[in-house]
Each structure stands twice: as structure tokens, then as C-alpha cells.
């Protein structure tokens, strides 16, 4: 099977404090992967390492079979955490999605008919085409996430990386977003999501990565969501209860959320 992401022996540190250590991982294309783990466990950092946004101490990252460079990055769509974005900026949903076309636009060129077509198509895919002219700050959390996802689609990304797309988003919208990701996977995209929502990963994702600085486990959710592995991942931050046939995991989110 073709590989979307290949990580070998990756370590990343901030101020000499290791955040991600010795990660070796291979993600097949057209998979839908949920990355779960405690706050500070390196989930966001791992995504950023895939994008070349953090300096790695050692290790190699390959995306779609090639080392990460500007050309490959065009094929990777990134949806950052909501807090990273300035929502007061005067741009419409259409403007934001058009930004996805900027990396492949020549300088000084106006958007071509094809650029516009890709933007509209992306807006339709996420169900936001009726709100194209609305200013980004006026959307709900779920709508903002869908617009950002549309930007990644307009970029013609093959691999989608989403950092906590459903945090601060109401429950119905969370389901919409995960349904949408499922459909995109069906359309041939590789989808990688960091999340705190273990049940959602269990129900809807093909693969789960348990990450607490190191890879604790990587495999199908039903195989890796065991009390032992979850306890090892979250340590004291998770209570795993057995209720009859079912395993219930309760996460102590602290203040970070």
C-alpha cells in the first residue's frame, strides 16, 4: 500500500525540553488517523513537524514519498487550532479559501477561472457556498473550521492535517465535521486529526495513534484502546472504567482543554 507519511526516529524539542521523542511511524494513504494523548504530549508538535514548522533534533519525515519541501507542502493542507488565527481580520470566507490557491499562483497574476472554480467547489464540499461573502469573524466555531478545511481542499491537498478541529465546537457541528472528513477520506484524501474525543476516534477512524511524547501504540482503535494502553498514554490524567462490556475512558482535561 502507498504511504502518505513516513516518519523515522523523529525527535523535536523546545528549549531543550523534548516534546516528541523517537517517533517512527508509517501512515498509509487514504487512511483516517486520530492522534490522541494528554495535553503537552506532542500532538500539535507532531503535526507541525510534518509541515517543517518546527526544527527537529533528529529524524526524517517523508510526505507522499518525498522529503518535506515547498513543492510537497502544496499537497498538504493544514487546519491550525482556532486560537492561532486572527478572527478580526477583514476577510470573507471566499478570500480565506482563495488563499489556498496562493502557493500555486504566479506573482502578479490574478486568480484564473480554474482558481475560482476550485474555491467554489471547496466551499460547496464543506457546505459553505451560501456564506462565501460573509466575514470570517461572524462564523460559529464549526463554520470557521469548515472554511479552513475548504482552504486546504482548494489547495488540492492530498493529505489533510487538522489540529483539534472540534475543540470549542458544539456537538452537532462536531459530527458534521467528522462526517465531512469521512467523505473526504472516501474521495481519496489522507486525513490526520488531533483530538481529545476518544469515542469519536473509536467510532469513525481507521487508525488511532496514542502519543505521549513517544508513540505508545498505533493501530486500529479497537486494538489500541485498551485500558492498559490508555492508562499508559494518559497516565494519571485518564480514568478507564469497565462498565459491563464497554470500556469508558474519562479524561482529566485540567485547564488546558
Amino acid at each position, binding site marked *: 500500500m502507498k504511504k502518505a507519511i513516513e516518519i523515522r526516529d523523529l525527535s523535536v524539542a523546545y528549549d531543550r525540553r523534548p516534546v516528541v521523542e523517537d517517533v517512527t511511524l508509517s501512515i498509509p494513504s487514504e487512511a483516517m488517523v486520530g492522534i490522541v494523548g494528554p495535553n503537552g504530549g506532542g500532538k500539535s508538535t507532531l503535526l507541525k513537524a510534518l509541515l517543517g514548522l518546527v526544527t527537529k533534533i533528529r529524524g526524517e519525515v517523508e510526505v507522499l514519498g518525498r522529503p518535506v519541501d515547498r513543492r510537497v507542502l502544496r499537497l*498538504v493542507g493544514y487546519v491550525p487550532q482556532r486560537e492561532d488565527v486572527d478572527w478580526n*481580520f477583514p476577510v470573507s470566507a471566499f478570500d*480565506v479559501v482563495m488563499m489556498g490557491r*496562493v502557493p500555486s*499562483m504566479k506573482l502578479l497574476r490574478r486568480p484564473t477561472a480554474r482558481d475560482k472554480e476550485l474555491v467554489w467547489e471547496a466551499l460547496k464540499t464543506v457546505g459553505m457556498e451560501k456564506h462565501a461573502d460573509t466575514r470570517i469573524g461572524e462564523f460559529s466555531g464549526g463554520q470557521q473550521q469548515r472554511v479552513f478545511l475548504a482552504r486546504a481542499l482548494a489547495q488540492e491537498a492530498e493529505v489533510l492535517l487538522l489540529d483539534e478541529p472540534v475543540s470549542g465546537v458544539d456537538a452537532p457541528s462536531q459530527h458534521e465535521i467528522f462526517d465531512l472528513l469521512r467523505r473526504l477520506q472516501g474521495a481519496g484524501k489522507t486525513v490526520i486529526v488531533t483530538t481529545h474525543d476518544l469515542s469519536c476516534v473509536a467510532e469513525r477512524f481507521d487508525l488511532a495513534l496514542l502519543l505521549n511524547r513517544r508513540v505508545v501504540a498505533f493501530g486500529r482503535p479497537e486494538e489500541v484502546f485498551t485500558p492498559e494502553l490508555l492508562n499508559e498514554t494518559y497516565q494519571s490524567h485518564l480514568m478507564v472504567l469497565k462498565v459491563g462490556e464497554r470500556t469508558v475512558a474519562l479524561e482529566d482535561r485540567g485547564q488546558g482543554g
Partner: protein
Amino acid sequence: MADHLLGPLEFGFMQRGLLASVLVAVICGLLGSFVVLKGLAFIGDALAHASFGGVALAFVLGINIYLGAFVFAIATALGIGAISRRGRVSSDTAIGVLFSGTFALGILVISRVDSYTTDLFGYLFGDVLSITERDLWTIGALGLVVLALVSVFYRQLLFAAFDPTVAAASGIPARRLEYLLLALLGVTIVTAIQAVGIVMVVALLVTPSATAYLFTRRFHHMILVSMAIGSLSALLGIYLSYYLDVASGAAIILVATALFFIALAVTGRGRRLSEKAEHSSGVT
């Protein structure tokens, strides 16, 4: 009425002053929109003050004032980036240290050449009516450079300003664009120092764009509206200064300030601009 409007234009210095200040307002409106949204007001003020060291030195050495101002502004911008990148002091601190230092150098230099101080004070507080034809050509040329560079990189600059992380992640050279923005800010400030003065440049950068921000929904509209508001402030300010015999730079800024408060009252929605200004920072 027509007499009141056209009368002052019989004088060459008034024609040049009007033309120069409208040119400057247009350039400031363009860059100011980035300054307001990126919270660069403090660094803009710093570059303006720093350029005074260059103005004073150039004045004494008899070289082009604009060149001196530009060199100092750019060197300060790069210096702020370099010092704060090391991480030993915050960028706010680096800005504070460098701009007061270079400004003090300017004051020191002019304190040695007291015969010229009145001319140099024109740069501090603005004296648009003393602009020569050669100044006008310099301002026009620098304005064209700014306009051309922003046009070429407009979409990339917008992407990097709105969402620098994702811009970098999708292969846009976000860091280099940030330096480009600072360099353009330096050029813009240099064009504006004679019109409104070093002390008030930041107002011409920030105020018309802040006004435009209150009632525009798209970034390019914000740019166009702030250019228009800046030009209107410049025109009204110069006529005011002519008829009331007050300082031109101050008159321009006060008109812009009045327009801002009118817009604030009319739109009645205080989007959180102050918060942005507090987060002003340079290249980090």
C-alpha cells in the same frame, strides 16, 4: 467658496504641499492597513523616531535626507529582529532600546549645529509647505516602489498577515515576507516624515486605517478606504493650516483623529483594536 478652495493653490508651495501630503496619505493608507491588523504601530513609531538619527546625520554631512532616514529605519528594523530573535530580551524591549538610542543620536547631532535647528525641527513636527520639487520627486518615486512591491506580493502578504503559520505550512516564505513588510514600512515612514513629522508619522499610518477598519469587511476595501480617508485628512488639514495659520502636520493628524471618532460613533461597534496594538511586535 471656489475662491477659498482655489486661492491657496496660486502658491507653488501650497500645490507641492497638497500633492505631497496626498501622495503620502495614499502610501500610508496602503501600509497602514497591514500595520493596524498586524499590531505594528509600536514598531512603526520606533522606525520613525530612529530615522531621525539618519536625518540629522545626513543633514550635517550634506547628503540626501531621505537616504539617511531610510538607512537608519532599515538598520533599526533589522536590529530589532536580530536582537529579539536571540531571545534574551523581548522585541518590545529591543524596540524601546533601539529607537530611543537612535533618536537621541539625532538630538545630539542637531544640538551641535544650532544654526540649522529650525530646519531640522521641520522633520520632527512636519512642515509640508516647505517641500521642494526634488522632495516631491523622491516621495513619488518611493511611493511607486511601495505600491509596486505590495501589488506584486499582495496575495502572499495578505495570506502571511492573516495566518502566518498556515502560510508557512503551505510553502509561502512567511519569514521573508515579514521582512519585506518591515522594509516597506521603513520606506513609507521615510516618505511621510516631512509631511507630518517623525513624531506624528505613526498617526498617519494607523488612524486612517483604523477608521477604515470600522466599516469595511474586506481587506482590499480597507486599504482603499484608508487611502481615501488619509487623502481627505491631508487636504482638509492643509487648508486648515493655511486659513488658521497653524502647523500643517498637526492639522492633518487632528482631522484624521476627528474622522476616526466620528466613524467610531457612527458605526457604534468597537471591534477590539486596542488589543491588537498591545500585541505589537516585530519580527520574532
